[in-house]
């Protein structure tokens, strides 16, 4: 490149510094979004693994029917493949604090031996000492907030079937191996005890098959000593219970962030195209005095390279800082983890820098090449005028028709501007549709389980016990049993996590004519009275590595007892908890015990949180008076809050990205319209010369902007539907089955934002156009 072309480049940049600054900002914003999510994904993924591993989660937990002692544990530790062991117990308790009211949320309580060295499934004491003094309990730090308790507070707990006993909170622990208490709507407590029915194993290696084999060997060894092992739990090794959820969230957000960056680069290419259009006379002149296309290609390529480089330089640090803040927030809010290491691999930094520089250059190659190839003749003929003449609306007058004709005259520019808006609109509406799909899933989950209060009892209970209680509209008596896939002669192995929720499986006995469960069936039929070995299973369940089908036989262990079920139906719940539904008589036959319900499903007259809470209290009071001990009484509101807790980060980020995409689109339109006005300076001068008032020119430009916006909206409809369908499909596979939702609010919002935004965005160029004097316009070369 020649020295004078460099000088020209520098002065061109200086002359167009507003536009260049806009390009830098647009690329920078896109790159910040992309790098933030890219880094966040890396940091969160690594920190989840690191924090989870630091707790030395048990490779396997063996649930025994009766307590075992330290001598047994010592024997287990000596078995092949076992690296370490621990004895534990746990129970879900009711609790009440200083206010004297039993809480709706259970307190999941983990029991340790006083001398437990905490080498397996450990936690970190943040306040107080471990073990706690006699009568003391430590509470997990997020649970402290959820429960609204403080160190020093008395805490009365009641184990299922036991009598209340009052402890004192003597400390706070941090246990990142568990899903956060606020997400699960429960508390976590840590106490010492004397009786233990869980053997936890640490096994060398991370292969689930190998861990299962070692655990089964341990189970066989325990059986040989007369102990009954009811279940072996092997959760996915070193995978936090929310790992899959986080992967899905960050993958979706990363896709949107990458698209936002590409969109911003596309916008820059459009803005550059506008700038190059202004330079066409210069290009023609340069060619007239001997410049080749290749020579002219170089300065413009250098210009976009420098724009990308400066944008990358400016965006790099904000991206890093935003990623640290964002990942810290995700880890804290969604995973109850501390951020300890914010480093990212060097290749990601290289990728961000390369993307920041290379993608704008790649997208700008086409307009630059086109401009550099402009011939002298084309340049001499260029007056910023029409791409193509059109007969649209020929012979008619009026600003509106004139604006429409102008749009169809400049088809390339129209395609770029409307295309940019369409891409922005597609991404915005698709993001909002995914948001709506998640909300729809939550609503569907509510419709599928039309239960307002779920009451668990320590002993048998009937629906009749609470009929007539004030606020109660309906009640059904159910029973839920933990179950596990079983093979004859083998101890059942499940993927249940230590919280006994994630990865677990339940057999739920429901009245066949239940009015509270409306799950959509994808195969077969629902339960009927008299079905004694029939089960309706969720489609996410697998048998032998494949989804269950009607006609399959399901072998399940219930409390160590082998049972067999025929799958008569496959259903699709939104948030499946790993359940199979059976009839009460079926459960009685399978367990060999008379059917006794321990779960009351209550619907309330009103469905607001206050009415649900009041009904929960009234039901509990009624049951207590009838001598039935309630172990938990959970209003639906808590479940909704828990679901919201799982979704919070994803929805917030999707909304933020959707907003940014909208902004990019409107900026793009403003830039494009500004270029159009500059190019058509001479035309506006002619309009003034033939008597057009300033207001008419202003209205003409605004009308062109609004029509472009409308076209952009129209063009976005089909791609938005397609992208929504693709995202929904991908997320349904990775996460939970999502309903297809079109967010009308999003579409109306986008329409309004784009049309009003376009009108406002072109107002500046329109005012400039209207103020051009005839002399200025016609003197422009």
């Amino acid at each position, binding site marked *: 490149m020649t020295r004078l072309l460099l000088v020209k480049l520098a002065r061109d940049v200086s002359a167009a510094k507003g536009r260049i600054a806009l390009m830098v900002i647009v690329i920078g914003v896109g790159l910040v979004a992309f790098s933030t999510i890219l880094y966040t994904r890396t940091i969160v993924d690594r920190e989840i693994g690191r924090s989870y591993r630091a707790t030395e989660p048990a490779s396997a937990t063996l649930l025994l029917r009766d307590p075992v002692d330290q001598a047994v544990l010592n024997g287990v530790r000596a078995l092949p493949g076992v690296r370490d062991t621990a004895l534990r117990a746990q129970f879900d308790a009711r609790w009440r604090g200083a206010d004297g009211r039993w809480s709706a949320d259970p307190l999941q309580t983990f029991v340790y031996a006083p001398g437990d060295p905490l080498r397996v499934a450990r936690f970190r004491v943040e306040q107080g000492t471990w073990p706690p003094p006699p009568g003391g309990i430590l509470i997990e730090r997020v649970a402290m907030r959820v429960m609204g308790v403080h160190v020093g507070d008395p805490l009365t707990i009641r184990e299922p079937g036991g009598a209340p006993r009052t402890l004192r909170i003597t400390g706070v622990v941090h246990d990142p191996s568990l899903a956060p208490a606020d997400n699960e709507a429960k508390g976590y407590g840590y106490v010492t005890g004397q009786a233990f029915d869980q053997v936890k194993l640490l096994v060398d290696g991370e292969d689930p098959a190998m861990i299962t084999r070692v655990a089964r060997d341990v189970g066989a060894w325990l059986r040989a000593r007369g102990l009954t092992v009811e279940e072996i739990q092997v959760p996915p090794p070193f995978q936090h219970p929310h790992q899959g959820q986080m992967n899905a969230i960050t993958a979706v957000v990363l896709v949107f962030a990458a698209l936002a960056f590409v969109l911003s680069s596309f916008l820059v290419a459009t803005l550059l195209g506008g700038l190059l259009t202004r330079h066409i006379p210069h290009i023609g*002149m340069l060619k007239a005095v001997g410049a080749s296309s290749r020579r002219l290609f170089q300065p413009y390529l250098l210009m976009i390279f420098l724009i990308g480089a400066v944008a990358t330089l400016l965006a790099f640090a904000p991206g890093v800082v935003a990623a640290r803040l964002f990942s810290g927030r995700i880890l804290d809010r969604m995973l109850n983890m501390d951020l300890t290491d914010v480093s990212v691999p060097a290749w990601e930094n290289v990728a961000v820098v390369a993307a920041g520089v290379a993608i704008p250059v790649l997208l700008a190659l086409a307009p630059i090449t086109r401009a550099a190839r402009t011939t002298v003749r084309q340049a001499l003929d260029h007056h910023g005028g029409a791409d193509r003449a059109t007969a649209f609306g020929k012979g008619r007058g009026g600003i509106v028709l004139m604006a429409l004709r102008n749009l169809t005259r400049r088809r390339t520019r129209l395609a770029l501007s409307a295309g940019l808006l369409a891409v922005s609109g597609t991404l915005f509406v698709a993001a909002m549709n995914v948001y709506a799909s998640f909300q729809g899933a939550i609503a569907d989950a509510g419709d599928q389980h039309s239960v307002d209060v779920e009451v668990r009892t320590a002993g048998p209970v009937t629906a009749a016990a609470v009929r007539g209680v004030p606020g109660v509209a309906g009640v059904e008596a159910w029973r839920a049993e933990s179950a596990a896939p079983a093979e004859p002669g083998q101890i059942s192995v499940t993927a249940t996590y230590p919280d006994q929720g994630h990865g677990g499986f339940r057999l739920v006995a429901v009245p066949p004519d239940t009015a509270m469960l409306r799950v959509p069936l994808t195969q077969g039929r629902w339960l009927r009275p008299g079905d004694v070995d029939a089960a309706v299973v969720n489609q996410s369940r697998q048998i032998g590595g494949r989804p269950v089908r009607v006609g399959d036989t399901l072998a399940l262990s219930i409390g160590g007892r082998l049972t067999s079920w025929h799958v008569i139906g496959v259903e699709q719940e939104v948030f499946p908890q790993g359940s199979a539904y059976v009839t009460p008589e079926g459960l009685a036959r399978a367990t060999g015990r008379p059917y006794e319900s321990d779960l009351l499903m209550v619907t309330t007259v009103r469905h607001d949180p206050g009415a649900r809470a009041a009904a929960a209290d009234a039901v509990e009071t009624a049951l207590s008076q009838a001598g039935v001990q309630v172990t938990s009484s959970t209003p639906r509101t808590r479940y909704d809050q828990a679901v919201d807790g799982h979704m919070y980060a994803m929805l917030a980020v999707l909304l933020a990205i959707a907003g940014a995409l909208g902004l990019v689109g409107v900026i793009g339109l403003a830039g494009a319209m500004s270029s159009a006005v500059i190019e058509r300076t001479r035309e506006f001068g002619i309009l003034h010369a033939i008597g057009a008032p300033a207001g008419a020119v202003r209205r003409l430009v605004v009308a062109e902007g609004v029509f472009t916006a409308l076209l952009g909206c129209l063009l976005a409809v089909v791609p938005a539907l397609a992208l929504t369908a693709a995202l929904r499909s991908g997320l349904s596979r990775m996460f939970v089955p999502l309903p297809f939702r079109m967010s009308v609010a999003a579409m109306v919002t986008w329409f309004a934002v784009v049309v009003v935004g376009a009108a406002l965005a072109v107002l500046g160029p329109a005012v400039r156009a209207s103020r051009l004097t005839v002399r200025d316009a016609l003197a422009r070369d």
Partner: protein
Amino acid sequence: MTAIHVDQVSKMYGRFTALDGVSLKIAEGEFAAVVGKSGSGKTTLLNLLAGIDRPTGGRVEVAGTDLGALAESELARWRGRTVGLVFQFFQLLPTLTVAENVALPMEFAGRIPARERRSRAIELLAKVGIEDQAGKLPGTLSGGQQQRAAVARALANDPPVLLADEPTGNLDSVSGRAVLDLFTRLNGEGRTIVIVTHEREVRDVATRRIEMADGQVRG
């Protein structure tokens, strides 16, 4: 010696015939004024001589080069070295100073060593009488001064042929006269000059008058 040889050249724009079988020869050192009414084809002819347009039929040879044999990039290089172009609206780059505008073709042609370009630009500006404007941007100059700068730029690589399209069309009479004097002087140095014009004064100073009408040479 023939500087320009146009042989049976025609140029169509769609169905419109801008040039219809034009043939002419211009000898080295001639000062030719191409005259005619609007739409007669004179600017089209000049564009063909400058390699800005390509003929639909026929052959154009300028300074011994058959322009039809050159690719677009070769044409640009040839133009930079062989012809100097002057336009009605000056076509100076607004972000470069006057001297830089004049030096620009030297950079593209690469004939004049880099260290000599600036001084040569100043010399050329002195030749056209505006060396005191060398450091200014074109926008600050009068129309006459800008056109003189454009002439100086056309001389940058000492081309044997100067082509000018209505060079005085956008100037007042005094400035126009000064520019014509300049062309006369340059012709006196032996340069071949072809000017497309409506102006009577140009016809008076040219050594040859080429009359065009309806895409044909009429005299």
